[in-house]
Structures are given as C-alpha cells and as structure tokens.
C-alpha cells in the first residue's frame, strides 16, 4: 500500500495499541506507539513520523494538546485524531486546531488504511518534486504553493485535473491569497508550458488604454501610435494569458473579450484585419462576479464563458493550520535574502500569528515575517519583533460573568468553569487563558468541586 511511511499511534490503552500494530502489520508502515501526549513528544524527537494518529482522551497530555504541540514543533506531520461517538465537538475542535482528519471510535482498519492512503497521496504531491512543466526554466513545482490544509489539497488536485486541458479557469479569492501562483501552476502544468504566460492586471489599465494593451494597435490608430504594436492576446498566442482583476474590465471591452473567448479572433485598434490566436485564458478576481452580473456591471454571457473551471482560494483565516508552515517558509526565505541567521519563531510569537485573522492573507503574513526578520536582533523572532497592531488585535478577548452575588469564591469558580468550557476542558489552554499556573488551576478546581462532565466515552 505505502512505503517508508512512519506512523506514531498514541492511545492510553495498551490493548488498543497492540491491536492497532497487529492490524496494520502487513502494511509497509513503520509503526511506533505511545501511551500519552508526553510520551509521544519524546518519541517524536527520535522517530521522524510522517503521520500521528492519536486518541483525544488521555491522561498527562490529551490528544488536542498533543495536536497543538505537534503543529507548533513539527508542522509537516499529518495528525489524525480518534474521537468517540457522541463527542463530535472534539473532532470539530481538532480540525480547527489543524488536524488533517479524524476517525470515529470504534475504528476499523479499512478506515485507517483509507486515511493513510489519502495522506500518502497528499505527501506525494507535496514532496516528490512533481514538476509542473519540467522543461520550463523556472522549474515550477507545487512547492511554490504552500499548504497542508485539506482545502489546499483539493485545490492541488483540481489544478492537476485541469492543467492538461484547454479549459478556461476562473480563480476567485480575497486579495493576497495567492491567485497568481495558481495561474502559474495551471500554465506550467499544461502542454503550453514552454510558451509564454502573459500576465495582465486589468485594474491597472485605463478604459482608453485597455483595448490597445489587450488587442494591440496599428500605426497611426490614435495620436501617439507611432508604430504597430502587438497586444497581450497576440503575445500569448499558443501560450496562456492571465487576466487578473477581470471584474474591473469595462463593459465595452467585455464584449471584445467574449469574441476572443468564443472564436479566438480580434482586431487591433485602428485595424481592419481579423487576427486569430490560440490562447488559454486564466482569469482571477477578488470580486463576487455573480453579484456583479446581477448589478449589470459584468456581462452574464462572459461570466459563464470564463467560469468553466472555478477554483476558489480560501482566505488564510479559514486555513489557520497553514500559518506555522507559511511563517516558517517566509522566515527561511527572508533570512536567506537578508543574510541573517534566525533559527525560529518563538512559541509566543507564533501564537500571535495564529490568532490573527490576516485580512491581507498570505501576502500580509509574508510582509510581517519579512519585517520581523529585518528588525530581529536575536536568534528567534519574539513578540517584540511583531507590529503593535498585530498584538493588540490578537489579545485575549474579554467576556461577561453573570453572578447571583458578588462573592469572590463564586466569581472565581464561575470564571474557571466558563473558561474550561470554552477551551473544551483543555487544562493547559485554560490555565494560560486564566493567567495562572496549571497546578493552581488543579487545586482551585478541587477546591470548588469543578469536574469535567461525563461524556459517556
């Protein structure tokens, strides 16, 4: 089934660990086991696991805390959590915290095999140097697009499916999500890879210039047209044209677009000869084009013509599990550029990066890390190296306590219970939120008789 895949299985029940190992003994897997999160982290120091499959409910360190630690220390490891029926909130919490997948108890080995197969496929795409366009001088590969989130995996699959076709692609997503990288991946993965990819930012072209830029002009077509000029479509003949911010194209030009897309023909400005090109069209926009169609700002026929294969890039706040991966990538990139030797991003600084909502998406993250690298004086990036506004917006949010009296013990117990519920009884996280030591939290829970409700698993 798979080869050289190293798997760490974490469960506090010895019998479960034994059966897990026995059940997969015939597979080409290297399996290690651990009885809790603490032991798992010790094992990971010597055992470079590709996959960690962990139970959630365990003593010493539960599965969700282990997941957080792994995401922080080993962002390349795929983590799968095992949760009991009836505790689906654990699965939701785990997925939000960056788990690759979850399986429900009692699990069967077919399910486990399927999950491992899925991860192996993903790893193959990420690691086996799948060159999209080997001949191209840039050596374009998928590694140019960084992401381990399942949403990104779906996008990778879509690119692989569509790249070899001639289909028009519409890439949507907020500014800074990496739409241009997707366009490059589509082009350099296609048979046109050795031909040019012409990039046009439609928003940067004025209404008077756009026709001349896209379709070219004849000598003397207008004042200043002192020579014949080829337009972007002509330059992209046999290659691809990337029309960024397609939503900003004025209606009259949209009609010309439609003609090129339908027939591959156009005329230069001031010309009478009809030219024919064979160009693959890739469009991108951060606007809601279907809404623009309703508002009569975008032609409906053009919308359906370009929306053949839609690819939506999720905003970074919807794939926060990729933040450590991206941040470490940018750290290496900008350290090389600035010739600095910064080893890591500290845990506290990484927590700030993970909590932030990134309205500017990956581009904003790149800028923040570049800025931090420039100003960092030590061997690791610490919160002081990050902009103040980033720290302010990620500070712990306040809340309201409802009390039946102003009793201090009641307030304390209510607050502890509330934070424990909000952190899904993750004691480490709750203690951090409450700004007290974990031991203090234990003793206060004992003092007030606060216990986790029995969930039946």
């Amino acid at each position: 089934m798979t080869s050289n895949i190293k798997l760490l299985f974490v469960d506090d029940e010895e019998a479960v660990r034994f059966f897990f190992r026995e059940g997969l003994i015939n597979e080409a897997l290297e399996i290690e086991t651990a009885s809790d999160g603490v032991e798992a982290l010790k094992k990971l120091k010597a055992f470079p696991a590709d996959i960690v499959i962990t139970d959630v409910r365990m003593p010493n360190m539960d599965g969700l805390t282990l997941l957080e630690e792994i995401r922080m220390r080993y962002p390349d490891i795929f983590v799968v959590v095992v949760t009991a029926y009836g505790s689906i909130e654990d699965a939701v919490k785990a997925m939000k915290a960056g788990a690759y997948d979850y399986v429900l108890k009692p699990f069967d080995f077919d399910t486990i095999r399927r999950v491992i197969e899925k991860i192996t496929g993903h790893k193959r795409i990420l690691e086996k140097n799948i060159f999209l366009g080997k001949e191209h001088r840039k050596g374009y590969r998928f590694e140019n697009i960084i992401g381990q989130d399942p949403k990104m995996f779906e996008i990778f699959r879509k690119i692989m499916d569509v790249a070899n076709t001639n289909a028009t692609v519409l890439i949507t997503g907020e500014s800074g999500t990496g739409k241009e990288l997707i366009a490059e991946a589509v082009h350099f993965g296609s048979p046109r890879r050795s031909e040019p990819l012409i990039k046009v930012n439609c928003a940067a072209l004025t209404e008077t210039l756009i026709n001349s830029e896209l379709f070219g002009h004849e000598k003397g077509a207008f004042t200043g047209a002192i020579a014949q000029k080829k337009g972007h479509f002509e330059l992209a003949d046999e290659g691809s044209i990337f029309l960024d911010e397609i939503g900003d194209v004025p209606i009259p030009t949209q009609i010309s677009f439609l003609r090129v897309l339908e027939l591959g023909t156009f005329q230069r400005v001031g010309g009478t000869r009809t030219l024919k090109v064979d160009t693959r069209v890739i469009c991108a926009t951060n606007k809601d084009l279907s809404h623009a169609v309703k508002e009569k700002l975008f032609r409906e026929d053009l919308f359906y013509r370009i929306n053949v294969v839609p690819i939506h890039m999720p905003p970074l706040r919807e794939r926060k599990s990729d933040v450590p991966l991206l941040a470490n990538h940018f750290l290496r990139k900008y350290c090389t550029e600035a010739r600095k030797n910064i080893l890591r991003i500290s845990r506290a600084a990484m927590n700030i990066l993970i909590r932030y909502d990134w309205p500017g998406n990956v581009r904003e993250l790149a800028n923040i890390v570049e800025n931090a690298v420039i100003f960092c004086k030590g061997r690791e990036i610490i919160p002081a190296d990050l902009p103040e506004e980033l720290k302010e917006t990620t500070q712990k949010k306040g809340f309201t306590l409802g009390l039946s009296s102003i009793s201090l013990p009641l307030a304390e117990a209510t607050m502890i219970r509330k934070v424990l519920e909000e952190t899904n009884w993750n004691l480490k996280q709750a203690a951090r939120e409450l700004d007290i030591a974990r031991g203090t939290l234990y003793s206060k829970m004992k003092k007030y008789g606060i216990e986790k409700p029995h969930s039946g698993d």
Partner: protein
Amino acid sequence: SLPKAEAALIQKVLETNWNLKRAASRLEIARGTLYSKMKKYNIKRPAL
C-alpha cells in the same frame, strides 16, 4: 486573567467606602484573606 478579575472585583467592592469589614462580608471571604489579597494586588485606599 483570573488575578486581574479578582483584583478588579475587590477594588470594586471596596469602593463599601473602603469599609474592610463590610467589603469582606460582601465578598464572602475572611477579613484576613481580604488584607492579604489587597497586599498581593497592591490595592490601596486613595489618599484623601
């Protein structure tokens, strides 16, 4: 933050016009506990 909440609540109740006996009673803690918490959080009656 639990310590901040505790300090804020004590400060609020003290502002019983700094009557420590009444404040401790309202907070449902011993007067000695209130003293030590005021010391811990450096809560002082403002100078008149």
